[in-house]
């Protein structure tokens, strides 16, 4: 189920909220789990069982970590340490193995078969369970935090299930660490103001997703429909910016909706984006883009590897590992690996001095970021390496095929999407968020949000009437 669907907005959410608010506080976690499983199961009826299985295995292992045999025992401390290690390794193996089989098996098999020129490794052709990368990473963070003894209170089974499956963040994050919500998980009160602010935030996110991301997405699709190899330089860049906006507002919108829903449920879901496109360097960009993923990799990969404390060479290696993994996390294909590696290279260059220089000249920093980020998104967007090469060539003015989408089309696109593009630029700055926080309690803000809500619903209905969503032929 998607947040931006009639089914969610007018069926699931009201019914769920009424039940959730009516039941006594001690049953709220159970209601949340049940609701989340329904939310997940509507779209993925088979994978919901997989999710439950995975959650149960993880909970069992985390409990085993702290299990103490009764009675007197020699070397109690030593055995406890060993048990913790075994449990952690088992959990890591299980979770990563799970993720590997569903997400990476076919990619690795295809690559191996290609290298060996034969059908040595069979393909599984499994469908990817929705949100598997997100919830696996949440469970991993819980296991590692447990092992490190960082958690003040460990979760009860129902709390752990609620933590992993909580529908606001189940399918598209943010990735929450258990300590961030542990207190609220045990005891939370939901005030009228929470409902009010939560719903407002949700509406803002809905607007970002439906009114900005979906709309600008048509421009990218239109351009790609003409073909990656036929584009004039101007059109290629326009497409790259359109896709950059699409992916940002889509993801940001989803994260904001998650925060709003979290608030309505009595949680505080961490922020995931902080106006990333106004960054002055790529490293700053990654501190502002998908912040929960960045901090996950930092906390559980980069720092355990030694971070930047063991010399330049080791730092470079650690960055490489983190960025190759970040690339792979986003998708099992070579373009994602390439995408991660590009960031690795850029970050190393920045660490070696370019960063300092950029800080001194802010304008250049902005230009540098705004030129490079669209290029990286193109690498992200186009899975077919040959097409990717053609598109990047177009962006540099190199054409293998005849240019078929030229400046005339560029002007037409500008005319058609000009206002939308201007809105996208505005919403990529930090101002709309500031205005939101400043004015959200005023009556006119309420009316604006109400308008956004119904305009979004209108767009959703038009989209679903036309089964091809935001394509119109």
């Amino acid at each position: 189920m998607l947040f931006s669907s009639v089914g969610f907005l007018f069926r699931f959410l009201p019914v769920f909220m009424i039940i959730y608010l009516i039941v006594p506080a001690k049953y709220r976690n159970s209601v949340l789990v049940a609701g989340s499983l329904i939310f997940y199961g509507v779209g993925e009826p088979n994978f919901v069982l997989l999710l439950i299985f995975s959650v149960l295995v993880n909970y069992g292992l985390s409990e085993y970590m702290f299990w103490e045999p009764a009675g007197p025992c020699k070397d109690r401390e030593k055995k406890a340490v060993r048990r913790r290690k075994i449990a952690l390794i088992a959990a890591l193996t299980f979770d990563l193995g799970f993720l590997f089989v569903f997400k990476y098996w076919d990619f690795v098999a295809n690559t191996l078969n290609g290298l060996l020129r034969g059908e040595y490794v069979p393909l599984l052709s499994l469908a990817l369970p929705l949100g598997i990368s997100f919830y696996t990473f949440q469970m991993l963070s819980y296991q590692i935090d447990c092992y490190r003894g960082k958690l003040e209170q460990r979760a009860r089974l129902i709390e752990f299930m609620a933590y992993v499956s909580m529908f606001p963040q189940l399918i598209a994050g943010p990735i929450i660490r258990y300590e961030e919500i542990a207190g609220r998980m045990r005891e939370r009160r939901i005030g009228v103001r929470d409902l009010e602010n939560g719903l407002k935030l949700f509406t803002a996110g809905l607007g970002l997703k439906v009114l900005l991301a979906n709309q600008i997405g048509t421009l990218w699709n239109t351009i790609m429909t003409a073909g990656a190899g036929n584009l004039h330089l101007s059109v290629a860049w326009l497409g790259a910016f359109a896709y950059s906006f699409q992916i940002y507002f889509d993801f940001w919108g989803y994260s904001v909706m998650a925060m709003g829903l979290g608030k309505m449920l009595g949680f505080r879901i961490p922020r995931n984006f902080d106006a990333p496109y106004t960054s002055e360097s790529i490293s700053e960009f990654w501190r502002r883009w998908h912040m929960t993923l960045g901090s996950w990799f930092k906390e559980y990969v980069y720092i355990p590897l030694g971070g930047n404390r063991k010399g330049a060479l080791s730092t470079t290696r650690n960055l490489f590992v983190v960025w190759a993994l970040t690339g792979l996390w986003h998708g099992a294909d070579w373009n994602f690996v390439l995408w991660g590696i590009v960031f690795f290279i850029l970050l190393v260059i920045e660490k070696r001095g370019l960063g300092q220089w950029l800080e001194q000249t802010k304008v250049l920093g902005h230009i540098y970021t705004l030129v490079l980020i669209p290029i990286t998104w193109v690498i992200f967007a186009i899975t077919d390496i040959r097409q990717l090469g053609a598109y990047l060539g177009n962006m540099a003015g190199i054409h293998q095929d005849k240019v078929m989408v030229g400046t005339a089309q560029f002007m037409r696109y500008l005319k058609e999407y000009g206002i939308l593009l201007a809105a996208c630029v505005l919403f990529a700055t930090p101002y709309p968020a500031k205005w939101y926080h400043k004015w959200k309690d005023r009556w006119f803000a309420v009316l604006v949000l109400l308008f956004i809500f119904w305009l979004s619903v209108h767009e959703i209905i038009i989209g679903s009437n036309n089964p091809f969503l935001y394509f119109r032929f």
Partner: protein
Amino acid sequence: MNTNKKTVKKNEIEKAVRKGKDGRAVQKNNSRNSEKNNKDSLTKSPKRDKRRSSQEKRSWKEILYNCPYVLLVSATAIAAMLCSDEIGVNVMAMGESAAAWKTEAGSLADGMEQAEEEMSDQPSEDETHTEGFGDAEAGPEAVSGAVEHSAKDNSGDTEERTDGGAVKPGQTAGQDTADKPGITRFEYYEPQQIDSYYYSDAGRIALTTEYDYVLENDSYFNDAAFLGDSRTLGISDYAGLDGADFYCDSGMTIFKLLGEDGVTYQKTGEKVDMNQVLQEKQYGKIYIMLGMNELGYGNTEMYLKQYREVVEQIRQWQPEAIIYIMANLHVSREKNSPETEFNNININDKNAASALLANGRDIFYLDSNPLFTDEDGFLNAELTFDGVHLYAQHYDVWRQFLLEHGVERR
């Protein structure tokens, strides 16, 4: 917390009521105690809570004042759910309106329907067995028969069918090319049972009208008009037919073509009223390709009825023009979705219907699908990004195809 439990519970119920989705009974029950029980649960920290609850008691008014947005959304949502079939669960009304639509369409299109049934039931005698096309399940049982639209041997039987199906030729054009009209044949296969309001499996695929076409050069398009949706827009943008006039929009349908909203004339980028354009300017050829946006709008009968009206109207305004009815291009395997109405069986259903209008004299049916589809009838994945539209460079093939299907007046 424990001592407050009862209060908390009450508050929650009230909040639910305030969300506006609960029964009136609860509200009544609570309003008696609201003054007493409505201690603040609005702030998060228990400390502040305590302090507040001792200081002030919130009235209903104050709480309502705190959530105007929730109230507004809830109220409008309830109103929308009651009024709108899209949002609400007004299944009864939906069922009724669909049924009404269906009967209306049925009664209006009756003549056409009969003609159509007649044709699909009785394929002509020279049947040959060939393999099904575009449908894996068709298998070897699929039968291919040629249906003749126009009179080949002037037997009374076929003559009748012509009257039922194809649009009558225009006066002048009819006389000009009357000697050897083209034939529109169908390829038959075993149809699937489809449970959809929008379409059924036609069980036959319309083939390009068989005719003695002439290979033309680009000047052929100098007096041509193209009417269509985004795929025609693609031809306009990338096929390099600079002489022709293109009237097309993304999302265009046969229902909207002659409507008041108009269609974008690609040379100026402005919306024009097709009624006016087609009455004022005479074209030698008119190419129509519409049907994609109709896949989930109305059903095939309505589509055919409307198509027929449009073609007849154009025939009246443009007695000299050769009308080409172009098949809608299939979609790719990835985009083909049997669960929704967005699939090749539906596209094929629409195509087979529109092909009935071809008369082989001045109305021709052109199926360009064989140029771009694989052996199962899916749009070749390598030719498309979105599974629907061709990459710009492949429109050249289409242009060539159109040039090969010139019709010369004698």
